[in-house]
């Protein structure tokens, strides 16, 4: 419990630091938001008046405090370009991107763990060698390219989904999931390959340890040693990797959304960056940061459950 509280405290601190960095970065970047909103033709008086209205003349600390409290209350500011609250633009899109990332993560876990076990168990066999070759190839293909391949093969040849088509989750949830399956697979593929390789290596290493020999000496068969003893130990580094992979998937989905034409968070992010619509960019960066930090927090807790040695060493 103490461990969880400490980790939670660390998580909050990290979030605050990130928020300071994000806010400061966009305060330092040159360019006057008021001028951007009004256009270069605007009179200096009008610009000054708008600056007052937007509170841009206040000290940095005051502006940060206002932004943070607003953010915590769900008010992420107003888009410079569209003059609508950022939250209304972003919040409806977050479930799309997040669902896709979570699906990609689940695919990774569900596919890579059985494959890792099979390859380790039949190390050096034909199945193992085939999977490892396929693994090597998949690992080398970036998600956007495998996305194009998947669209071509499953969308255009097998017609399992309509390329470029999309159904929103508010309309039909099951079709929404079906449309997201292949994009999620494209994100997941390289992670699956990496996880398989990692779990395989970890399982092979762990099964040569002394405690595995002890397990055999007690009359365990190969499966008994593998599932009752080795797997839990072998999962420890894999969990760390999966945590990082999940965070990476959230960020990686931005490219894939472009490839598959999914109206998730990436479209807003890209247009906001090119339009210097900073409140929107800030909100999305904070969103991604929160997800990444939250995932790390969860990984720390799972870690503690799997490995009793964690927490005592510190």
């Amino acid at each position, binding site marked *: 419990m103490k461990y969880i509280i400490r980790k939670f405290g660390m998580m909050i601190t990290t979030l605050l630091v990130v928020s300071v960095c994000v806010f400061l970065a966009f305060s330092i970047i040159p360019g006057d938001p008021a001028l951007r909103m009004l256009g270069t033709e605007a009179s200096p008086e009008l610009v000054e008046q708008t600056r007052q209205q937007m509170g841009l003349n206040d000290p940095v600390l005051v502006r940060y405090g206002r932004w943070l409290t607003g953010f915590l209350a769900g008010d992420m500011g107003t888009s410079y370009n569209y003059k609508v609250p950022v939250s209304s633009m972003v919040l409806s899109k977050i479930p799309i991107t997040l669902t896709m990332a979570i699906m990609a993560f689940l695919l990774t876990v569900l596919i890579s763990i059985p494959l890792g076990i099979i390859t380790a168990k039949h190390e050096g066999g034909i199945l193992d060698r085939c999977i490892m070759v396929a693994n090597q190839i998949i690992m080398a293909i970036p998600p956007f390219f495998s996305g194009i391949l998947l669209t071509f093969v499953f969308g255009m040849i097998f017609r399992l989904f309509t390329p470029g088509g999309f159904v929103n989750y508010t309309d039909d949830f099951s079709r929404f999931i079906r449309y997201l399956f292949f994009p999620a697979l494209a994100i997941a593929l390289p992670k699956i390959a990496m996880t398989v390789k990692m779990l395989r290596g970890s399982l092979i290493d762990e099964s040569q340890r*002394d405690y595995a020999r002890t397990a*055999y000496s007690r*009359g365990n068969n190969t499966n008994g040693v593998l599932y009752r003893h080795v797997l839990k130990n072998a999962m*420890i580094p894999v969990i760390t990797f999966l945590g990082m992979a999940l965070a990476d998937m959230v960020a990686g989905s931005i490219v894939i959304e472009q490839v598959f034409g999914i109206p998730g968070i990436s479209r807003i992010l890209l247009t906001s960056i090119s339009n210097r619509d900073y409140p929107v960019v800030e909100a999305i960066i904070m969103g991604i940061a929160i997800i990444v930090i939250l995932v790390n927090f969860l990984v720390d807790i799972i870690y503690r459950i799997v490995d*009793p*040695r964690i927490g005592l060493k510190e």
Partner: protein
Amino acid sequence: MEIILDVTDLHIEFHDHDVPEVAVEDFDLMLGKGEIVGIVGESGSGKSMSALAIAGLLNRKSLKKSGRIMFDGNDLLTCDRKTLRSYQGDEISIIFQEPMTSLNPVKKIGWQVEEPLFIHHPEVTKPERKEKAIGMLKAVGLENAEDVYNMYPHELSGGMRQRVMIAAAMIGDPKILIADEPTTALDVTVQAQIVELLKRFNKERKTSIIFISHDLSLVNQLCQRVIVMQHGNIVESGKTSDVFTHPRDIYTKRLIAAIPRIDLNT
């Protein structure tokens, strides 16, 4: 004396490299019920290899084994895996040199001590298993057995871990306990306690023990018979007292001469 284990002409070869390497040659061992036999020799003499072969733990494909290890009417070298496994942990147990790494780091002590019962005696219920495990932990001298039951290996010292290993090895009340240098990694006072513990089990439960060590004075204290090995061969064997007082082989003589003695007069 009833013979419960009969090893004849055991021969173990490695095939890891181009030239086969002989690890054990013409190893013979007869173990009577309730007997303690010591195997001594320096590292690489093949003593641990022989022990692992008897425990059925040499299953690597790169190893070639021949000879016979007769136990309970079966040859452990040629019998099917299932028969071998039915003995492992139940009739034949083994404890190792490294108590620090021989226990699974992510499983509770109680779980690990109970495991042989779980595997070989599924009819034993969970509360009975727990009761037996705690009894066993007490029997090996862990006073706060109830607490230890719920601990993890990293919370215990090396000596305590070796006691846990012994508890797990003895829970099925095996006929043979193989102790592969069980005290080498421990400090001297703990060594003596572990040896006492083995002696007690031998006396109370009539467990036959194969005690492997390079510490001749420990072997002298514990074993009725001793086998001296060098380069995979048995160079001398016999009653411990005979071998120690009248060593015939030059290697045995050198080993005995190498025992450090405390001479208070000088």
